[in-house]
């Protein structure tokens, strides 16, 4: 294992190359951005409805909800940045394209899942998400001292790691099953549950979504922390779940690779 600096440098190269490739086809880049903005309109409609109704959801005023949905849109941007690599994985396995990457002295999982980055999909989400987070934060009158900002950013980073680990899992099935069919469709559709704060799903929905399949942790915890609504246990889970699921994804990846190395031709 090489150090963090080594992987940061590689990440830098991927960023540069992905941007250069994208700019080769400018029309595609712009089209990608506008499509992503189209999807964002749908996400924003939810917020518009909440504001129109003017009702709080539990302890969340519409301003809080703006912050939560902003976090969701921001996270969507981060996820879309590398999501194309997940989608390409089943094809790479079938075509045996992993062969040329296995022989390189670098983490194969890193190489395969971070190689191509889609800035066209990320940018609109990142910009809109940031604006919504900042606006919601201000309007709701949430504390903005360094402690809370740091905590918010910490849970944001945790959410990034968790979404990477959690949503990689269904794609790893491609090492065993030839056609993933609708499995990944379902998994990806789950992402949209975060379009609304977890409060609207009722007690059991919220528990399952937080502790069993922790999708709610990804976009709800940063906001809940700001509101002082995250108890110590939840804080620990918010920091621990990403680590836990990252370890699971690493384990499964290694199993999958063993399978690839002994079964393929």
């Amino acid at each position, binding site marked *: 294992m*090489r150090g963090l600096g*080594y992987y940061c*440098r*590689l990440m830098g*190269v991927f960023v540069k*190359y992905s941007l*250069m*490739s994208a700019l*080769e*086809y400018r029309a595609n880049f712009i089209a990608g951005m506008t499509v992503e903005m189209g999807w964002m309109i749908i996400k924003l409609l939810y917020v518009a409805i909440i504001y129109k109704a003017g009702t709080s959801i539990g302890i969340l005023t519409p301003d809080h909800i703006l912050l939560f949905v902003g976090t969701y849109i921001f996270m969507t941007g981060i996820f879309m940045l590398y999501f194309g690599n997940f989608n390409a994985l089943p094809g790479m396995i079938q075509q*045996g*394209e992993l*062969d*040329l*990457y*296995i*022989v*390189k*002295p*670098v983490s194969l999982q890193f*190489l395969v899942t971070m190689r191509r980055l889609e800035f066209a999909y990320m940018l609109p989400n990142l910009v809109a998400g940031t604006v919504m987070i900042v606006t919601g934060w201000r309007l709701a009158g949430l504390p903005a001292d360094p402690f809370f900002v740091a905590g918010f950013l910490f849970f944001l980073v945790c959410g990034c790691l968790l979404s990477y680990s959690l949503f990689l899992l269904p794609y790893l099935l491609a090492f*065993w*099953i*030839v*056609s993933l*069919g609708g*499995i990944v469709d379902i998994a990806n559709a789950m992402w949209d549950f975060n379009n609304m704060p977890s409060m609207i799903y009722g007690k059991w929905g919220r528990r399952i979504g937080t502790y069993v399949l922790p999708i709610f942790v990804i976009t709800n915890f940063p906001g809940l922390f700001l509101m002082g609504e995250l108890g110590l246990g939840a804080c620990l889970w918010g920091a621990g779940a990403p680590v836990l699921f990252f370890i699971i994804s690493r384990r499964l990846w290694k199993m999958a690779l*063993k399978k690839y*190395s*002994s*079964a*393929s*031709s």
Partner: protein
Amino acid sequence: MIAVEHLRKEFSYYKKATGIKGSLQNVFHRETLTKEAVRDISFSVEKGEMIGFLGPNGAGKTTTLKMLSGILYPTGGKVEIDGFIPWERKNEFKRRISIVMGQKNQLWWDLPASDSFYLNKCIFGVDDGTYRDVVTELAELLDVRELLNVQVRRLSLGERMKMELLAALIHQPDILFLDEPTIGLDILSQKKIREFLRIYNQQRKTTVIITSHYMADIEALCRRAVIINQGQLVYDGQLGDINRVLGERKLLSVKTSGEVNEKQWENFGRVREISAAGAVLEVPQEKVKAVLGAILSGLPVEDFTVTEIPIEESIARFYQKEVATI
């Protein structure tokens, strides 16, 4: 340097429908079939050697190469390369080897090849100075200096292959595995790549194992050949000795002024070709003199030549199963 002992690889596969439904069925009932891709292969390679790996399609060449480079786990047997076991995939080992597959590419399609080189530089941790020297020197040797900044998608197939080779050599490996490096290329590109490999091997003393369908590749580059068929090793030795192993025979081409019928030719040896103007006979080496004398005195001969059986043809005979027992 490379020692392969009793290497085996079996693939088990299920008679299975694809997809979820099929997989669910397989949970309860699966019929396992086994294919032996490589069975009991042993050989060794010295440092700096360049050996040709020959065999018909599906003989197990690529599978063996993948085990040597650590991509696949074997079912049995041992491989040791410079004290490393390939499939443990230690980074230290990966830095010493490189593999190029004619059918797969590692270059970024929309970027100049030099960018892909740079990525490999970062991955392998090659320092700046060495990197610059290697690229300059190899680009010169491969005659692609002007193409380094052209997007890969604009390159011809031959040029792209040269770039793949260059990319694979950025970290100056001790051992190079080449799987069909000239496949689909035009004659000129093939020649150029051959020439490059020959010079590179001479200068760097890099050990090279190469598989190819084109005999010309192997004949130009390798003194030693390893032939496998149906997963088994059928020949390991000097390329030039292959004919001797098969029992030395010569080809006798005779031109006649008048037509000679087939029956008559058959008295002299095995007839391989026949026409109104002559025939080609296959004759054991020790009988060449006698046969030639008989023909010259008995037939209206205008001209004749004696040649070796082409090596390609000899090798093809190894591919037939009955020869596998030699």
